């Protein structure tokens, strides 16, 4: 506990029940204007379909709602409070100007079906962001429609399937490295492709010999995360794309780790045919406690006919418009045009950075990860010594000897004022500690983090029980997840 006071200290936090427990008849937080048309007779209009009771919906006043949610908010950790080193999640600063511009009247209140002649502003935002992302990725075209990364994966693989289909054979399977995110195999299954695992070599990279052996005309694509989930750049990327392309396969890149590349290298230049981006990771749109995300898919020319509809085009008169008539399209993956509000934020982020800012951002992200690696090497086991890009993966091998596992260390980190890193992923590292600091951390915060991690390692040696019982400073201690899963209580019920 010796370093704890440097980053965090305890303070009083308010208790707060469920909103339903504050409800009582006759309280209200709403007021409607007087009706300027005759009141409707619901019974006459709806007959048997008139609803009479809204059950246990709460009745509370405005101040109670403000306090309720403000109190709840104080029970959360957030980027705004400090470093949030979740690996592969890219928890970077969420600029506030993004939020301000997303709320400008004509943007926030635009209806997706309003006529195109009064939607030129929105169409221009879509077009400009598309052009920026195409340039950043080095690809030829893009769709912004997918609502999240996994949704982008599905969209990308549907285009892969349509492409192969157009050549007469949809092919049967997708190769996925054993270090991949769980969404990759889940997505392949949703698009009716079989999944074949691909081994990693001793450097933590795709094993080229295995790839050569497994690659054949049944393989539709390889789904590769680059840098991969070990934070390692696939140095044989050229060879990988050659092997795939030689047998007519496509290279899909999961862009989850694009924060290591923006302005420094472009996937389109190293052989990627299709990739998704996560605007909520690389392009600073807020995670918001688990969404909304946005997962644009950038593609090479060969896949362009298959883009979801609609596509934004410039008409002869210079106006922007949606084009729906695309006979080879995979169809829609979502109603309307995607998470437009996230496009606005991502574009504001790109504008705030410019080419020099984006490059510096990437450099700082990689510098931060390497600084942590250097600081913790020796204290924690580093299973792969291959150079680190934007994130570094340690294992709990040294601490496991004392019975302390990665999750315990993660929970103890909470007491030191940090959010835990990603635990137990990637699966190829038993007991993984996956750390991604992003560019948003100053040197001081990184030093505190390294200090905290070292201090915990000392505690593991001297007093492992303290680590095993952590966290000690939170409102609730470790929760009984087994009971939650055995007898699920998924909603509040009024006392009967």
């Amino acid at each position, binding site marked *: 506990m010796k370093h704890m006071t440097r980053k965090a200290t305890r303070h009083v936090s308010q208790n707060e029940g469920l909103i339903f427990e504050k409800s009582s008849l006759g309280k209200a937080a709403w007021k409607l204007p007087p009706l300027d048309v005759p009141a409707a007779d619901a019974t006459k209009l709806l007959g048997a379909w008139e609803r009479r009771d809204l059950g246990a919906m709460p009745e509370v006043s405005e101040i109670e709602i403000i306090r309720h949610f403000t109190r709840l908010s104080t029970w959360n950790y957030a980027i705004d409070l400090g470093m949030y080193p979740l690996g592969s999640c890219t928890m970077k600063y969420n600029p506030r100007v993004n939020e301000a511009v997303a709320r400008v009247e004509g943007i926030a209140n635009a209806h997706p079906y309003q006529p195109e002649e009064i939607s030129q502003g929105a169409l221009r935002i879509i077009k400009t962001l598309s052009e920026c992302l195409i340039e950043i990725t080095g690809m030829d075209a893009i769709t912004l429609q997918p609502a999240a990364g996994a949704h982008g994966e599905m969209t990308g693989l549907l285009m892969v399937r349509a492409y192969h289909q157009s050549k007469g054979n949809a092919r049967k399977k997708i190769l996925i490295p054993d270090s991949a995110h769980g969404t990759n195999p889940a997505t392949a299954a949703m698009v009716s492709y079989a999944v074949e695992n691909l081994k990693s070599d001793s450097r933590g990279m795709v094993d080229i010999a295995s790839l050569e052996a497994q690659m054949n005309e049944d393989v539709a694509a390889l789904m590769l995360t680059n840098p991969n989930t070990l934070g390692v750049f696939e140095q044989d990327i050229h060879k990988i794309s050659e092997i795939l392309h030689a047998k007519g396969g496509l290279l899909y890149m999961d862009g989850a780790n694009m924060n290591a590349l923006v302005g420094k290298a472009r996937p389109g230049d190293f052989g990627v045919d299709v990739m998704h981006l996560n605007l909520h990771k690389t392009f600073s749109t807020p995670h918001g406690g688990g969404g909304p995300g946005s997962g644009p898919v950038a593609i090479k020319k060969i896949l362009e006919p298959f883009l979801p509809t609609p596509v934004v085009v410039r008409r002869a008169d210079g106006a922007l418009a949606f084009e729906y008539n695309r006979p080879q399209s995979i169809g829609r993956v979502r109603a309307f045009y995607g998470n437009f509000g996230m496009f606005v934020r991502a574009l504001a982020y790109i504008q705030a950075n410019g080419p020099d800012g984006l490059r510096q951002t990437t450099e700082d992200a990689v510098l931060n990860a390497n600084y942590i690696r250097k600081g913790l090497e020796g204290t924690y086991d580093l299973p792969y010594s291959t150079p680190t890009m934007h994130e570094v993966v340690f294992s709990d091998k040294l601490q496991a000897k004392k019975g302390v596992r990665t999750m315990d260390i993660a929970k103890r980190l909470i007491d030191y004022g940090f959010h835990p890193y990603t635990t137990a992923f990637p699966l190829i590292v038993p007991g993984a500690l996956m750390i991604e600091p992003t560019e948003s951390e100053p040197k001081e915060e990184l030093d505190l983090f390294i200090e905290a991690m070292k201090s915990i390692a000392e505690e593991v040696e001297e007093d492992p029980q303290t680590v095993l019982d952590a966290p000690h400073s939170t409102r609730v201690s470790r929760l009984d*997840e*087994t009971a939650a*899963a*055995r007898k699920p209580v998924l909603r509040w019920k009024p006392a009967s």
Partner: protein
Amino acid sequence: MAYPTDRKYTKEHEWIQVNGNAAAIGITDYAQQSLGDIVFVEVPKAGTELVAGKTFGTVESVKAVSDLFAPASGTVTEVNGALATSPENVNKDAHGSWMVKITLKNPAELKALLSAADYEKFVAEEAGH
């Protein structure tokens, strides 16, 4: 752990206890231990055909899912309904908590399975890795 000698075992950690043409199937104590707290057992309805060596259901802990492999082929005649509400029974008494009962289709298949002693040896080796 002593494994009951009144039944046979698979390398995927299921046991099968035969009674004439009928048999009960469950998972071993070693399996429940490595899975941890079991929160859900999913098995097929009565009438379903099991095929030896193929998956027929799953056992879930909070953060893991394990497939159940059929030790022998046959038709499900009964499902242990108690496990739907009390999956923890498997943790408390794995060898006493059968999951399904089947009518054997080809009792000769049982010959390929492990005896209690062989299974114990197998587990000791696996744990040693």
